[in-house]
């Protein structure tokens, strides 16, 4: 894990922000924090600017039209912690990985933040094949069979950009960078068969 975790803090109340910062600094993990206290229309834009690993968000600061569905490239790699002031719908809660209510006990909040950190380091050292998601496995197969990013995007009805994000994640999780390396991995793990490759010509790239 990078020594310094980048945290986005989206929260209108100065006191709450200061409280959160105190909490974080007591945990002892080095972090860099970006504070935002205004209503956000375009969450993806903010995320691509700040590039946080963890986003602590008071959902009241997300404008109605804001897209917050965890499906976009910017949102898929961030751990979201909800900062709840009032009652929120379960629908909203479900979009967050973790939730903190501002009236929670300190120990409870600590626990949540520590879990988030642990999740973060899991993401970083995730190396077992069964930690590839279904989507990543289907993309890995297509890569191994010699498809280009464009072809994969067409076959799976997703954007080329999304394919690239998945490929980056696959490489990070497996520690394998090249297409021929991924092909060997796919064969070793029986994701594809050698016969499917159509001769060794495909393998030597």
């Amino acid at each position, binding site marked *: 894990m990078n020594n310094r975790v980048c945290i986005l803090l989206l929260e209108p109340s100065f006191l709450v922000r200061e409280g959160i910062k105190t909490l974080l600094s007591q945990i002892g993990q080095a972090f860099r924090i970006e504070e935002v206290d205004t209503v956000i229309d375009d969450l993806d834009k903010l995320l691509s600017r700040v590039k946080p690993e963890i986003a602590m968000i008071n959902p009241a600061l997300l404008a109605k039209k804001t897209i917050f569905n965890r499906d976009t490239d910017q949102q898929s790699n961030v751990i979201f912690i909800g900062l709840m002031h009032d009652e929120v719908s379960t629908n909203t809660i479900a979009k967050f990985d973790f939730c903190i209510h501002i009236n929670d006990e300190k120990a409870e909040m600590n626990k949540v933040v520590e879990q988030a950190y642990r999740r973060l380091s899991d993401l970083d050292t995730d190396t077992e094949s069964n930690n590839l998601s279904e989507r990543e496995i289907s993309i890995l197969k297509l890569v191994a069979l010699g498809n280009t990013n464009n072809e994969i995007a067409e076959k799976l009805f997703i954007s080329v950009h999304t394919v690239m994000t998945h490929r980056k994640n696959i490489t990070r999780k*497996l*520690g394998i*960078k090249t297409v*021929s*390396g991924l092909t*060997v991995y796919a064969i*070793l793990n029986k994701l594809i068969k*050698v016969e499917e490759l159509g001769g060794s010509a495909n*393998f*030597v790239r």
Partner: protein
Amino acid sequence: MADVIHLNHHLLHVLNRFNIHLGFGDKTVETICNEHDIHLDFFLDIVNTFHDASYFPLQHLQKFKAGMLINYLQKTHAYYLNVKLPEIASYIERLNNDESILDAHKKLLADFFADYQHELIVHINKEEQRVYPYIKKLEKVLQNDSASREEMEELSNYSIHEYEAEHDDVEAKLFDLKNIIIKYLPPPKDSRLLNVILHELFELELDLNNHGHIEDLILVPIVDKMEAALRSQLTQFGQ
């Protein structure tokens, strides 16, 4: 010199490229360099960049001739082609005797290595046939006061930076090969041979990194300077 090897035995290969071989006795680095007619500072810089990847050989840069470096780099190429790669290939072939590894897996590994080897050789050939001759010619033209304007203009069409990069995929393949063996190949009954192969791959990687390091940190700045000198000579011609 013996102390140098006690400190870092990986340097033995480097010494061999300077035609220095074991049996140093108590001779100092300077004495041995003098005996072999090796530029002492150059030797020290090469050894230091190898020993410590963060070492930056700034001071002596101007004193070195590109030809000196190319000579060294060519010797490392010869070492990869004639010694290291065949050695690793023979170890991989010896895996065939191990019946606890699936034939399909042996073939995968052998094919992958062959693929990697092919790419590395292509890369080396490109440097040997295009990059180094260009640099040598550049050096020759700059030393020769009577070089013709045509010669200079022809050379000025090229730049060392066009040749750069491209290391990437070759490096990535080696990285993958290591991880496939370390993480994904089902373990054989006796892993000693795989251990040896891995060890060799790590050594090769270390050596290749240093090779690239010397190109980037020493050779490219020298060539940059020569290219600048060539351009300024051409402008003088123009006036």
